[in-house]
């Protein structure tokens, strides 16, 4: 599973973003998106396009964690959202690994070309990868909409929120400023390692 996490200010200014991979079931925490060539801008594009859904759900649902709100099937990207009371948006894009999936292949016909290209990168460890995927069939990676995943994402968001509040409480931080703190980044990475 690969993740792309971003924080947007109430006025849609990106404050923070990070890409990482799963650390569960033998993952090494490095993001391996399906289309590595275009992932950098496509992830941003996909995640920002879900803002419309967030703004619709925002006024119908008073929870801070809005759960899984959007899916982009061509890249099988799932987006979960968390809203802070002061209007900042935490968006997490998660993409299950294609090694995990005959079921994923059946869904995304358009992804076929890309899979061939990127699996050659992982080709050496394919056997090991598939055994790991089988072991974790019930874990977070295999099923991005399961209750377990929702719970893990919620925990992750809650931990990031705690660190975000600490950032905001810093007297030198003004709302809408980019979060550049290296400590914050390492905290988010640690939260990702812990929950996702």
């Amino acid at each position, binding site marked *: 599973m690969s993740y792309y996490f971003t924080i947007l200010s109430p006025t849609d200014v990106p404050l923070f973003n990070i890409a990482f991979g799963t650390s569960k079931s033998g993952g090494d925490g490095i993001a391996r998106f399906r289309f590595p060539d275009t992932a950098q801008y496509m992830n941003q594009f996909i995640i920002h396009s879900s803002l419309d859904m967030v703004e619709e759900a925002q006024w119908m649902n008073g929870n801070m964690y809005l759960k899984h709100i959007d899916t982009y099937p061509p890249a099988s990207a799932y987006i979960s959202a968390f809203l802070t009371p002061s209007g900042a948006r935490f968006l997490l894009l998660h993409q299950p690994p294609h090694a995990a999936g005959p079921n994923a292949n059946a869904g995304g016909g358009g992804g076929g070309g890309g899979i061939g290209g990127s699996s050659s990168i992982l080709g050496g460890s394919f056997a090991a990868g598939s055994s790991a995927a089988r072991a974790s069939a019930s874990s977070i990676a295999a099923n991005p909409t399961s209750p377990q995943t929702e719970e893990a994402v919620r925990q992750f968001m809650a931990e990031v929120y705690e660190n975000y509040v600490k*950032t905001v409480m810093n007297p030198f931080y003004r709302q809408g400023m980019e979060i550049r703190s290296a400590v914050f980044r390492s905290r988010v990475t640690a939260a990702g390692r812990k929950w996702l």
Partner: protein
Amino acid sequence: MAQPPPRHATMLSLSNSNSNSNSHSNLSSTTTISTPQTQTHLPTPSQSSTGLRVPSNRKTIYDRHLNRSRNAELSRASFAFLFGEMVTYAQRRVTGIQDLERRLNEQGYPLGLRLLDLLFYRTVTGSSSSSALSSSSSTSASPPNRPLRILPLLHLIHGPLWRLLFTRPADALEHSVSPDTPNEYMITDNDPLVNTYISVPKEMSMLNCAAFVAGIIEGVCDGCGFEAKVTAHNQPTEMWPSRTIFLLRFGESVMEREKVLERAGVK
């Protein structure tokens, strides 16, 4: 001119270490900051190469727990001094009372945005511990909801926010009775803490330094997505000479959304 401010100098020396040729050509015009400066600061780049300076006890703000100061109380005397100084600061070069109140309001606004996040964080994590937060954490298991309608927002300000700031709820919450102004709400504080040690001169009798608190309220409203203008007004009674009314005027967009949400049955 003769002595460059030290901060400026370190900045220049840092940029020097990054891109030598570029900043040197820039430096040539300001001859006061010459090579000795850069040489004395040469050891610094090796330390600051990580780009992070950590306090000597190795604890950053991220290592502190947000609930640490939750039940701590601030000295009232130091608050009075600090607030008095803030008013003095805001009073410099103002054109009138309105301008002064606007400045106090602007000082409070960012505070409101912060308090909002802190308040929610504390109600989420602190609901297990028995504390004075009652209204929003009565359903202790589930985290509190973001306010979607005006009334929950006002209750949030009237109760939890006031308790966070002044350890007691506000004294009254009213809706404007006039049909022309359905967007006006009033929150009353009989004895605002900020005005306790402030005696306003007679010629400025209109001034209410609780404009600072009004700014905090405005920050909270804005943060929640309710565009509003908040002002503080004196309304003394015999029993409460410093009674203050905070007038909240919500914007049209908020009132429109309020109607839509009411039809959709959102509470």
